């Protein structure tokens, strides 16, 4: 999995969790919370959907790694690769 593919995985999850958000212009280097209306319940759902769909575990201490699409890709891509994806 490439970092761009990983960003798309996260965007797909957000699209399902928050279908009322416009995701066409999400800036990868800006915190998701600063450009989308996402609260802590939504971030919990991103974590749980990563586990449900892809078997990826994100411990609570690492939640801040999911702040932006870029940081998501940095943090999650090695986890996907480790799973052989």
């Amino acid at each position, binding site marked *: 999995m490439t970092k761009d593919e990983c960003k798309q995985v996260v965007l797909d999850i957000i699209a399902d969790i928050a279908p*009322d958000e416009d995701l066409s212009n999400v800036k990868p280097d800006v915190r998701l919370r600063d450009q989308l209306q996402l*609260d802590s319940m939504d971030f*919990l*759902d991103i974590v749980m959907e990563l586990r449900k769909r892809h078997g990826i575990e994100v411990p609570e201490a690492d939640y801040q790694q999911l702040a932006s699409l870029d940081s998501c890709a940095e943090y999650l891509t090695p986890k996907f690769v480790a799973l052989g994806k």
Partner: protein
Amino acid sequence: MNSASHYDVAIIGAGMSGLAAGIRLAHFGKKVCIFERHNAPGGLNSFYSLGGRRYDVGLHAMTNFVRPGVKGTPLGKLLRQLRIDRDEFSLCEQKQSRVAFGPRGEASLRFTNDFAVLEAEVAQKFPAQIDGFRRLVAAVRTYDDVSLDAPAESARAVVRRHVTDPLLEDMLFCPVMYYGSATEHDMEFGQFVIMFKALFLEGFARPYDGVRVIIRVLLEKFRAAGGERRMKCGVRSIAARDGRATALTLDDGSEITADHVLSSIGSPETERLMQPWAAPVVGQVADLAASSTSWSTAQQAAAPIGALTFVETITVLDCQPAALGWGDDTIVFFNDSPRFAYERSTEQVDTRSGVICIPNNFDYGPGRVLPEGIFRCTCLASYDRWAHLPDATYHADKQRWYAAIQRSAQRFLPAPPASAPDAFARATLATDMFTPRTITKFTGHLGGAIYGSPVKNRQGHTALTNVYLCGTDQGFLGIVGAMLSGISMANYHILQKS
């Protein structure tokens, strides 16, 4: 352990909160089963058939309505968390509602789903109070009402810091209390904020086919996510060892086990499952305005049974209510007393105040009207004076109070034309009435207490470490609040920890 009867989570009650919790848990792979004693889902917001007609039980309107695009509100959170498309609820907005006080509704505040209407009404009718009202609204808007550990404070005390006219104070409290307060005279400010936002800053809506639309959506999501449901199969008792629930005994005598138990049936009702031999306490939290510490003191006590219960009459008409001159109002909150008394009724019914709901007066779209007229009235009642009557007396009392309630409520609506003073009676096709006794029979809520115990338990903890409360006694109010309660407790106690 028999894996066929072991669940990750057992949920007690298929009402709004239990179903919402079930959807979350099943969606994230938990093996979950909802146990419901009644044959119909929905709990306090169910529906039934009588004489070939379908009636909604409790729902006047779904509160918390916001239009598409308004974000960060309870309705939006609920839709996201349950993966529901808002079109599935097909919500239609109210036309207008009123708070009408005085023997004939002389003092009146109109409100709609546009908050500016209420603000303008206050400015016009209480010009000396408008600045204070705006400060109150600002305090409501900035209050963190979803916090699970906010300090408790008397709502009357907070409101009086901003609004000094007792008439306006009571006119604001009347709808807020009728649509959710489990405490007499006063309420906790966090609860006031939830209801004020739900009613005034957000608004009222209803699906054309009523509450069954919402229940159907929840049932379908739960089923699609893999959840199990057992109807006509309540939980009779919870066995415990070392502070944990070990097994649930069902009404049919069989036993199941679960790692976690979420109970939506109420706090004293849940305690009773754990200790079926103990007598519950009936009580109230005393005089909140006088002591700001009484809330926290009360919360250390066991949850008493709520003192507030209601009767509701339903009248089916052969015409649209507009034909009787009642085509404008969706909901009317009325009171004829010098001070509004939200308290346990001393008589069987307290007809001094109440709520009128005319479901026809939602905007269902051009040319789309309900097939029959519906006229609902709700008043405070006494559980004790209804619960133990012999059947013949019970039915006679229902008829007598039905008439008294119509007389009281209709003072607050436009009078019939002089030429047809009996137009309402002549248009009546069918009537029904539920009492506190009906509520307890069908929902299991002790004391007929629709809004549950006066002591709310935000974190949902119980005496057993793996049993949690959701629904009314967790403290998020209204049907949107109930669903959010199920969601929050499933997240907080189970999903975030696994």
